[in-house]
C-alpha cells in the first residue's frame, strides 16, 4: 500500500511535468529538450528556501513558479526566433547551461552535494508528512495543472497554438503575432513545471543537479511522445506507464542499481519504435 502511494506521488509529479511540456510540444509544435531546467528551478527554489531559509512550502512554491516563469520567459525570448533543428539544439544547450549553474553556483546550491533535509509542507498547522496526505496534495496540484492546461487548450489562444504548430508563417498573415504566442506558452509551461519541482523536492527531501540534466528532459519528452502529442489525457497515460514500469522492474526483482538504466534503455528504445511506427503516440492528436 505504501509502495502504491509512493508510485502515485511520482506519477502525479511526472504527469504535471508532461502536461506542461505537452502544451509546448504537442499543441504548439515546439520540440523542447529543456523541461528539466524548469523542473529544477522549482525544486531548487523550494529546496533552498525551505531547507536553508526556513520558508514554508507554499511560499517557496510560488517563488519557484515565478522564478521558473521568468527563466522560461528569457529562454523563450532567446529561442523563439529560431525554428526547427536550431530551436531544439538551443534548448539542449540551455538545459546544459542551467545545469552548469546548479552544479557550479556552490554558495547557493551546494553544487554536486545537493540540498538535503527539505521538510514536508504544512498548511494551517497540518503537516503533510504522512505520505497519504502528501499524495492528496500532489493529486490536488495535478488536478489544478490539468484544468489550467485544459482551459488554455480549449480557448482561442489554444486554437492559435495549434495553428502555429501547423503553419506559423501563414498564421502571421492572418493577424497573429506568433512570437508573443510562443513566448506566452513557453512561459506558462515553465511555470507549471516548477510545481512538479517543488513537490519533488519536498517529497524526496534531497535534491542534486543530477536530477535535472538533459536525460531527464528526454525522459519527460518520452512521456509526452508516448502518451500522445496534443492530447492532455495522453500525458497522464504516458506518465502512468513510464513511472510504473521501472518500479515494476524493481518489484519483480531487478537489481536496483541497474533499474534506472534499464528504464532509460527502454524509453530510449520506445522513442525509436514510436518514431518508426506510431509517431502520434498512444492517443495523440498530432504527429511530429
Amino acid at each position: 500500500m505504501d509502495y502504491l502511494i509512493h508510485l502515485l506521488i511520482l506519477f502525479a509529479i511526472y504527469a504535471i511535468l508532461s502536461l506542461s511540456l505537452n502544451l509546448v510540444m504537442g499543441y504548439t509544435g515546439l520540440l523542447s529538450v529543456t523541461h528539466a531546467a524548469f523542473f529544477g528551478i522549482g525544486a531548487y527554489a523550494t529546496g533552498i528556501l525551505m531547507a536553508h531559509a526556513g520558508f514554508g512550502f507554499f511560499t517557496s512554491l510560488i517563488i519557484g513558479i515565478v522564478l521558473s516563469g521568468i527563466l522560461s520567459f528569457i529562454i523563450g525570448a532567446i529561442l523563439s526566433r529560431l525554428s526547427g533543428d536550431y530551436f531544439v539544439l538551443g534548448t539542449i544547450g540551455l538545459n546544459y547551461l542551467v545545469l552548469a549553474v546548479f552544479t557550479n553556483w556552490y554558495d547557493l546550491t551546494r553544487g554536486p552535494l545537493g540540498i538535503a533535509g527539505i521538510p514536508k509542507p504544512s498548511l494551517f498547522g497540518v503537516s503533510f508528512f504522512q505520505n497519504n496526505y502528501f499524495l492528496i496534495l500532489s493529486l490536488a496540484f495535478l488536478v489544478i495543472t490539468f484544468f489550467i492546461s485544459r482551459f488554455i487548450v480549449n480557448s482561442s489562444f489554444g486554437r492559435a497554438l495549434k495553428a502555429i504548430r501547423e503553419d506559423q508563417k501563414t498564421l502571421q498573415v492572418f493577424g497573429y503575432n506568433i512570437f508573443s504566442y510562443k513566448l506566452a506558452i513557453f512561459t506558462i509551461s515553465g511555470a507549471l513545471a516548477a510545481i512538479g519541482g517543488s513537490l519533488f523536492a519536498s517529497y524526496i527531501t534531497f535534491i542534486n543537479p543530477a536530477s535535472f540534466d538533459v536525460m531527464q528532459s528526454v525522459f519527460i519528452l518520452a512521456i509526452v511522445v508516448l502518451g500522445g502529442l496534443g492530447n492532455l489525457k495522453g500525458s497522464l497515460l504516458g506518465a502512468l506507464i513510464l513511472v510504473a514500469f521501472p518500479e515494476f522492474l524493481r518489484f519483480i526483482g531487478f537489481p536496483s542499481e541497474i533499474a534506472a538504466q534499464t528504464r532509460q534503455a527502454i524509453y530510449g528504445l520506445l522513442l525509436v519504435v514510436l518514431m518508426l511506427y506510431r509517431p502520434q503516440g498512444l492517443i495523440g492528436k498530432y504527429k511530429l
Partner: protein
Amino acid sequence: MKAIETKNLKKHFDGVYAVDDLSIKIEKGTITSIIGPNGSGKTTLINTLSGMLEMDGGLVVIEESQKLTKIKPHETPAFGITRTFQTIRLFEQMTVLDNILVVLTERQVFKAIFDKHTNYHLKIAEELLKKVNLWEKKNDLAVNLSYGQRKLLEIVRALAMKAEIYLFDEPFAGLFPEMRKIVVSVMEELKKEGKTIILIEHDMGLIRELSDYVFVMDSGKLLAEGKPEEVLKRKEVIEAYLGD
C-alpha cells in the same frame, strides 16, 4: 480611388530581381488580374504585398493614404489585406471548422487565453462554409479533404477575414467546373460589396470573363497593362508567353 498602389517596388534574391521597379495602380472595387509567364514574379509580388517577403525598395500605398516601405505580415489585416496561396497552406491537422474559427477569434495574446469562440462566430463560420458545401465536413481534418475542397476552404478562410483587398494566387488551378463556378460567384459577390480583388491566373478565359483590368509581368517588370481583350491581343504579351 486606388485601393492599393505600388511605386518602384523591388524584391531581389541574391541579386536577381524577382520584382523589378514595379509601379502599378489597383482601382478600388475592381477585379484586377496579374498574368505573365512562369517566373515573371507574380507570386513574389503577392508575397511582398502580404508581408511574407520583405521589400527591398519602393513603396506600397494603401487607400491613397498609408505609405509603406515595410510590411509586417501580422499587420496586413489592419491594412485590409488578406490572401490565398498557390500551394495550399491550410492548418492541416486541424478541423475545417477550426481553420475558420482561428481567423475569427481574438488575436491579442492575453485576451485570447480567456477568450472562447461564441455562437456568433459559429454562425459566421456556418454561413461561409455553406457557401462552399463544407459545413457537413466541419469536423473533418483539413488534410483529409479533396484537393478542390481544400482550395475552397482556403478561399473561405480569406473571406472570413472580411478584408477590403483580396489577393488570390491561382485560386482556380485544378478545380472542376462546378467548383470554379462557386469561386467565380464568390468573387462577383465580393465585387458587388465594393471589395478589391487581385488575381493571379493562367486561364485566359477566366481572365477575360472576370477582370476589369490586367497587368502583364515578365522577368519582374511590368510588360503591359490595360483592359483584358486589348492586352491579351498585344504582340509583346503573346511573345512573352511563347518564349517561355
